[in-house]
């Protein structure tokens, strides 16, 4: 390559810099930038020193492992814990099969979850927890191996995912003597269930409301608009209170709607209104020529929406939609106000225990870290989805 004197090609100028050169050019190029850099470093040093000293020497982390069970499942009875494990094993089967059948993102997510399982296995948890993690990880791996190249299983796996919701609910609740009332559901388990149901249910509802608000039929347009504006004009807490206090008054006779279900309904209805507006933003970005071209080919309205408009519209608003999911995940913490003990709720009950008084920083930091892990995971997956779909490219 060195002696290509005849080549006519002109290479672009080399703009790559070594780290030292970069430091010189960006942080120490003038005397005042040098001072600012030093001040900034000093500030960062003191902040991190404070945090690290507290985390590693002063904080009393005993409270976390001692209450791990409460944090993860709340007051869910320990002798019924096999119900939770069964649900996890079932999901592991579905996830493993999906990863085997679909390439790409599903597989990456599955590998990531498998790694988490393996990490739990190695951490100093109670032996039963590590056993469950081991079994779940093995199930995941085995289903992955089974599902490889089973293209004709796709339909059944999708059916499986759809059924996994009622199945999870029934499995956790149980029948007859071993029933675990939903009032016993708590901790991260409850948070995840509320968030998953909310996310899965609010998405189609939001899409329908968005289409309804742009409908040419006045009745549908008005119903959708009134719904969206009413719900968006009310705080989520109000909806939760209405669900837990007002709804039972209107219900006929002894009919008791489950507390957890009422919270799910409130969360779903609330998020759907915001989802609708996000989706509507995407719908408006689609040029009318797209609909005209679809109509000219003879596609009916539902098919035009399904194959032409929605795929483009949803792709354009993935960041807003995932933002809404993340909001919803964090908003589940409000259910502790209507008497449910989600992750934040159990944190407060742990702190109410005389044994752990004064450990707010440790407990809340731990809870915050859990919320962060899940929310960041959603954000990360959405970025991967965007790049997989080639958003902005075609």
């Amino acid at each position, binding site marked *: 390559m060195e002696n290509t004197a005849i080549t006519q090609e002109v290479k672009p100028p080399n703009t790559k810099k070594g780290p030292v050169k970069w430091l010189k050019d960006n942080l120490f190029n003038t005397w005042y930038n040098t001072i600012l850099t030093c001040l900034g470093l000093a500030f960062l040093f003191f902040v991190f020193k404070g945090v690290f000293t507290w985390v590693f020497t002063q904080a009393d982390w005993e409270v976390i492992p001692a209450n791990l069970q409460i944090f993860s499942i709340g007051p869910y009875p320990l002798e019924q814990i096999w119900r939770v494990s069964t649900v996890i094993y079932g999901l592991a089967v579905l996830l493993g099969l999906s990863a085997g059948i679909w390439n790409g993102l599903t597989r990456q997510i599955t590998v990531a979850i498998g790694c988490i399982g393996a990490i739990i296995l190695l951490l100093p948890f109670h032996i039963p927890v590590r056993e469950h993690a081991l079994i779940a990880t093995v199930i995941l791996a085995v289903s992955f191996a089974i599902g490889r190249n089973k293209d004709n299983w796709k339909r059944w796996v999708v059916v499986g995912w759809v059924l996994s919701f009622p199945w999870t609910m029934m499995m956790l609740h149980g029948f007859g003597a071993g029933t675990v009332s939903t009032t016993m559901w708590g901790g991260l388990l409850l948070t995840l269930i509320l968030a998953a149901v909310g996310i899965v249910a609010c998405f189609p509802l939001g899409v329908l409301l968005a289409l309804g608000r742009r409908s040419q039929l006045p009745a549908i347009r008005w119903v959708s608009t009134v719904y969206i504006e009413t719900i968006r004009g009310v705080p989520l807490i109000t909806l939760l209170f209405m669900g837990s206090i007002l709804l039972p008054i209107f219900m006929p006779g002894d009919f008791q709607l489950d507390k957890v279900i009422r919270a799910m309904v409130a969360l779903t209805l609330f998020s759907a209104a915001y989802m609708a507006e996000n989706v509507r933003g995407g719908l408006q970005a689609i*040029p009318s*020529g*797209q609909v*005209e*071209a*679809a*109509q*000219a*080919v*003879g*596609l*009916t309205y539902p*098919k035009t929406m399904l*194959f*032409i408009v929605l*795929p*483009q519209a949803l*792709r354009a608003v993935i960041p807003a939609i995932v933002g809404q999911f993340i909001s919803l995940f964090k908003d589940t913490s409000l259910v502790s106000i209507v008497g449910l003990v989600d992750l934040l709720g159990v944190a407060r009950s742990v702190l109410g225990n005389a044994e752990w008084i004064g450990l707010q920083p440790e407990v809340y930091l731990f809870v915050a870290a859990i919320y962060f892990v899940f929310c960041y995971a959603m954000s990360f997956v959405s970025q991967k989805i965007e790049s997989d779909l*080639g958003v902005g*490219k*075609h």
Partner: protein
Amino acid sequence: MTENESTTNDPIIICEDVHKWFDDFHVLKGITTTFKKGERAVICGPSGSGKSTFIRTINRLEEHQRGTIIVDGIELSNDLRNINLIRQEVGMVFQQFNLFPHLTNIKNISLGPIQVRKMSKRAAEEAALALLERMDIADQAYKYPAEISGGQQQRVAIARALAMEPKIMLFDEPTSALDPEMISEVLDVMRELAHSGMTMLVVTHEMGFAREVADRVMFFDEGVVIEEAAPADFFDNPQHERTKLFISQTLQH
């Protein structure tokens, strides 16, 4: 060029006193005309004259408010079933191509046959490949529209319309959005299509194409057809002052 060889006397589109308003603006002021099977009509006129609106009423992308339009024996009314039937018979090519950017070219073409004509995926994709071959762009089948040139995109759009095996093709200024060097590749395809006996209504400013291919040239101005004639008569012996002015202006460049 030999003309009229494929034209029969059976009318395929009958328009009677077609009126259209955009709010208070009277775009089409009573168009009455008949297109025969296999006829190639070029529609020209200044912008805002209603020529695009007129061909868009024929597959109901625009609704006419008075008069009747009968396409292949089916009258266009508010009956959705009729509209969908007619749209299956009438292909359309747009100025801005309007390809579906999230689908590969071959999927753009096979979507209609699969979803509307209920063709199997395999048969539809084979047909799509054959059409792309005919358009001379088979090698672009698995690319996305944004990855190919404007002239190629418009040819994919023509293939998409043809995939539905329409009896009539509408072209709404198909070359107006193209770079000059790509116009001829699209016109070549349209010429080939014209010789295959397709009924074509073409809104265009390409007067050379009109002279060569058309059976009839219609001149629109302010919502009425003020002159229509065979291309030889139309270009060499225009009757109306307005037409004369238009021809002298368009032929200047």
